[in-house]
């Protein structure tokens, strides 16, 4: 008996270690069948299960118990069983439910992408583009909050927050003095640091990197530039507190901002310290390695939203095609 379990996702089989989640198994396969994840973060223990964008259908529970699971499940928090069969983009039910989740995530989102620093590297923007409908059916006032400064380097813009809890887990993980959490409940929940007490920690800046939307932004970069006009370059330095491995974002000869290196799922490889992030903004502070690889699909490399390729999900689904007609026409012009 091998100690690996076999799982089939959208018809593609793979053997993974027992205890792997469906999402991580799908990431091992890679490509279009990977469910999007807005709250799960492999580096943060306990994360996931909240946003519900990663839902998939389990059409066969396992070899032993082949019954399908009664509901769609969150792939990030469901472990694979031997012989499990999962449907992601091949199931219309999943696509439908996921576009429902996207719609729901967007109803209280301000959609202020034109003035948002995250635009261009925002998970919600990408997701909205892939799955969302063109028009919202929500006709009420969106909930709003005041902007809050968390220390002098980070700004919290609660309006944009999707309550993924990633920053809360980050704060929990970097310090045992809990100063960062959630207040209130339901749709008036808010991320907070109790009366604006700064998250006082060398690694607090990482909450910016884990935030999937533009709710937590770097004040030293605010409104300085759009990400797709900047050129990312991998670099490192000898840092006493962290690994010192970062990405520098250049505009001309200036380093506009420093972030941790992110993988293709938008997760940082290693957390970096605040000194690296906020204070080392000169080329001579760093040893340059090479330009950061950015996927072709990203607007950062294409500089235009219009050339962004519609995902296969849209190409195969007449319903989504109809919903995104205008956008698709633009694409075919290029």
């Amino acid at each position, binding site marked *: 008996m091998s100690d690996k379990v076999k799982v089939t996702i959208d018809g593609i089989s793979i053997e993974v270690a027992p205890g792997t989640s469906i999402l991580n198994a799908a990431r091992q396969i890679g490509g279009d069948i990977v469910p999007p994840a807005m709250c799960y973060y492999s580096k943060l223990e306990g994360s*996931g*299960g*909240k*946003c*519900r*964008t990663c*839902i998939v259908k389990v059409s066969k529970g396992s070899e032993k118990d082949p019954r399908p699971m009664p*509901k*769609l499940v*969150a792939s990030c*928090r469901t472990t694979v069983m031997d012989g499990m069969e999962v449907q992601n983009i091949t199931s219309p039910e999943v696509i439908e*439910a996921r576009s*429902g*989740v996207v*719609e*729901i*995530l967007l*109803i*209280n989102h301000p959609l202020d992408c034109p003035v948002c620093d995250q635009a261009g590297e925002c998970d919600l923007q990408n997701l909205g583009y892939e799955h969302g409908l063109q028009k919202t*059916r*929500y006709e*009420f006032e969106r909930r709003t909050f005041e902007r809050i400064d968390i220390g002098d380097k980070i700004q919290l813009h609660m309006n944009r927050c*999707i*309550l993924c*809890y990633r920053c809360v887990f980050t704060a929990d993980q970097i310090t045992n003095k809990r100063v960062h*959490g*959630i207040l*209130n*409940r*339901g*749709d*008036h*929940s808010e991320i907070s640091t109790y009366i604006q007490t700064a998250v006082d920690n060398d690694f607090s800046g990482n909450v910016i990197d884990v935030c999937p939307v533009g709710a937590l932004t770097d004040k030293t970069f605010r409104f300085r530039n759009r990400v797709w006009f900047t050129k990312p370059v991998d670099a490192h330095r000898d840092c006493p507190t962290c690994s010192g491995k970062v990405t520098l974002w250049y505009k001309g000869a200036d380093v506009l901002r420093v972030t941790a290196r992110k993988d293709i799922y938008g997760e940082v490889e290693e957390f970096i310290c605040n000194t690296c992030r906020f204070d080392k903004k000169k080329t001579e502070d760093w040893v340059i390695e090479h330009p950061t690889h950015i996927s072709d699909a990203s607007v950062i490399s294409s500089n235009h939203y219009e050339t962004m390729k519609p995902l296969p999900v849209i190409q195969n689904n007449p319903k989504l095609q109809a919903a995104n007609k205008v956008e698709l026409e633009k694409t075919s012009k290029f």
Partner: protein
Amino acid sequence: MGRKLLLEHINVPGINTFDVYRQKGGYRAVEKALKMTPDEVVEEVKKSGLRGRGGAGFPTGMKWSFLAKPEGVARYLVCNADESEPGTFKDRFLMTHIPHALIEGMIVSSFALGAKTSYIYVRGEMMPQIRILERAIAEAKNAGFLGKNILGSGYDLELYVQPGGGAYICGEETALLESLEGKRGNPRIKPPFPAIAGLYGCPTVVNNVESIAATVPIINDGGDEYAKIGIGRSTGTKLISASGNLVKPGVYEIELGLSVEEFLYSDEYCGGIANGKRLKATVAGGSSVPVLPANLSLKLANGEPRLMSYESLSEGGFATGTMMGSGGFIAFDEDQCIVRNTWNFSRFYHHESCGQCSPCREGTGWMEKVLHRLEYGHGKMSDIDLLVDVSKKIEGNTICPLGDAAAWPVASAIRHFRDEFEWHVKEPVKALETNYGLANYAEPIKKVEVTS
């Protein structure tokens, strides 16, 4: 007269004190259980067919046998007394008037599960009940039924009462455990289930107040005897808290299998609809179950009478059935507005959503706003389908059952009372002044003339 197991002595003065309760045969079950082995007690409960009284209706004995029993790890029993579903108030009644029934049940159940520390998690608003329970625990301890070496059997048990913060969501078992641990009451993502890793990571059983109290008659009379009461897989008696437009609202103990009609109209129970009006709709098991129009409340789709049992109430699935839920029976007379009532329920769920998972957090608020608009005469025809659609997007896609609970009342109200919703759109001004009345969906049940 139906048999009374839990509320048999409810009218005895002083039954809330230890002495009177003991005189009336209380704590016999403890004496009996401590002479048995824990497994035998579990076996009795399994035989009784007792099903969870908190809402889901999962067989209690089965739940107990799932409890992991690793060596050297503490096990816990937690009693869920966070009863806060609109329309349900049976546990509060039991705790107020016969607190010792719960304490006795806790001792028996803890013994069966091998728990040395047990908690009763009481909803924060129930301050008087918390004091009543604490007094009862002190009395029981004085009499040697709690603490070290109970009745010389070598079994130790400490029982604690923990007030909650007053959040509905803490009635969800994993949220309850989080709250009990002193954290924010967010439901946990399952698996692991509490039977494997619950309170402080130890195996834990969470049971409703009534389920725990029901173990007392089960041990006294034997599981087989208990299983004889009731019908089919719904065994025993159940407390129903009846409210709404009834002649005699209140908490009743019924034998499962009683017909809904008898429960509603007989003088032994609710005594009919108040003021001689006619029944329009019922919510059979607390606010989260689907609402049913009068005709379907009393009769199944095939014309047979509907019974108060887990199976019969859910007969017909979501199309024509509802659920036993937590036993909060709400009756609406012909002058009640279903749209307003649905809005009211959805306002509750909007307020109580914990805000963890997006469909429930955002969707409940959305539904509430649309319903509010409909009720206040600003609705559109498309709103009705929008509501159905949003409720579908929530249902089944959430971490805990609160999402489903929020979606079902809305979906079912539209399923059965669509014309009333449409009327609110077509006649916005009239809808503010008068009620839609009975219309066609409710089989007109004979109007009773009030004689006074």
